[in-house]
């Protein structure tokens, strides 16, 4: 290990927390929320790679790769949905989609 695993994990934790904060704070912009999610997923990838390195096993890297692939699928669909909804409501403010409640 180049650095103690804990440092890698702390870095991942910080990234994850930043991503989460982004998601929470940017309720007015779906795109920024998606970006926050991407940040969180990156943290997950970092952990997986760190683990892979720690144990000298490939599984973590495969996992990271799969997360990446999955994310790209998710993002494309999410953005399609954003476009689809924007067409209807002319907004990307997540909180404005509140026709259902209670």
């Amino acid at each position, binding site marked *: 290990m180049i650095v103690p695993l804990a440092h890698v994990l702390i870095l991942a934790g910080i990234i994850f927390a930043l991503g989460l904060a982004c998601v929470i704070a940017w309720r007015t912009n779906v795109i920024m929320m998606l970006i926050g999610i991407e940040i969180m997923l990156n943290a997950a*990838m970092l952990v997986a790679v760190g683990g892979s390195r720690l144990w000298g096993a490939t599984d973590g890297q495969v996992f990271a790769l799969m997360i990446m692939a999955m994310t790209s699928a998710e993002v494309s669909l999410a953005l399609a949905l954003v476009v*689809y909804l924007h067409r209807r409501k002319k907004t990307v403010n997540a909180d404005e989609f509140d026709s259902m409640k209670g």
Partner: protein
Amino acid sequence: MSAADLWAVVPLLILSCGSLLILLQGAVVPGRYGTAIGVVATLVATLWACQPPVAPTAPVLGIATTPFARFFTAVLALTATAVLLLSHHYNRHREITGEEYPATVLFATFGMAIVASAVNLLTLFLGLEALTFAFYILVAIDRNRPASGEAGLKYLLLGAISAAFVGFGIALIYTGTGTLGIAQAMQGSLTAGNGNPIALAGWGFLLTGLAFKISLVPAHLWTPDVYEGGPAPVIAFLSTASKVATIALLLLLLPAARGALFLHLPLWWLALLSMTVGNLAALLQKNIKRMLAYSAIGQMGYVTLALLSGNGGGYEAAAFYAVAYTGMNLLAFGSVASLSRGGEVNIAEDYRGFGFTRPFAGGILALAMLALAGIPPTAGFVGKFLIFAAALRSGEVSLAIVGILSAAVSIYFYLQVAVNLYLQPVETPSDHNPASLPETATLGLAAVIVVFLGVFPAPFLDLIAGILP
């Protein structure tokens, strides 16, 4: 990869190939045979899963055809069949044509089957995300109702966040234990003495993500909106199969970590909050789909209670309840779909007199309500019985009492539906457009199953006891 391995993954192949086939035929003759192919594929997958494997199975490429996997594959595929049958007429009335719908349903089923068959966390994760992903599309698929898209967005946003949580959690567990194999990872993460803090943190994230999937409080808030917005057959699918798959996932993970004390309190609180909040919030709901959503939250609270009481037979109870719940919710949303064919009928008052003007669908809905309320002789009763028996056996007395009290409260809103169906004056004229044959057959069969499981649960219970790891 031997022939035997291939043989074992055939159900998965059928589902995925069926899905592709639908897409392909859609390109040639749009919107003709999608449902048919889907039904055939899911049925064949079910049947295939039912037959015993030719050879003792070893993990293949990240999955294993254990009895557990075959059982859940069969249940999930059969649910998909039912959903396809139920949605055929509904979709036609909603102009949800095209081959996307059946193909996505098959894809979701594929994901679920993967979850049930997974032997390592990566497959598990991907299967889970695949099925959730399919539901992003399915929930938003009704383009005539803005609510559908909105529900899709809400589901997607929270789903993606939960995916991040799950991913982060699994990664941590992996880092903590050094393996993605479920059994080893679970043993490494939870049972080793004071535990592995990294893996434990991973469990924290994982549990949050899973709480979203089976809508436990406080990650439940999407449920009512998505249930309200999504097309009824899709919600029938979402509320049953996706939950069953997630429960199957938990059943894969938790028993391997028997004796995990760290998760006890979190699960305890999740169960408590879900049971109370879900059932209370459903009390005065006017919209039947929202009511069912809150009810689902409550029901998942019971399942959590069962999972929590694994030592006392809770896993069996959870598995049984998952299946029973599938039957009941299929009945509920299936009849809602059938009743709202001519337009969304969601507000409770709209159901006035349906018990008489639409006797079949109304009766099915009433049966579903009774079953959900846990009134014998239905599967819901046996399920609740098993859960509470397990809870008491493992000493969760206070939670069991809270659960039973919240169940008592829940009866009110289930009953309210029956009240609207049968006790309120009939306002709508008799409908001479009875439920279609596929609907009738599906709902009838599901009703028979729900009652049968309530009266003769013994063989089924034996089966479940046999498949659990």
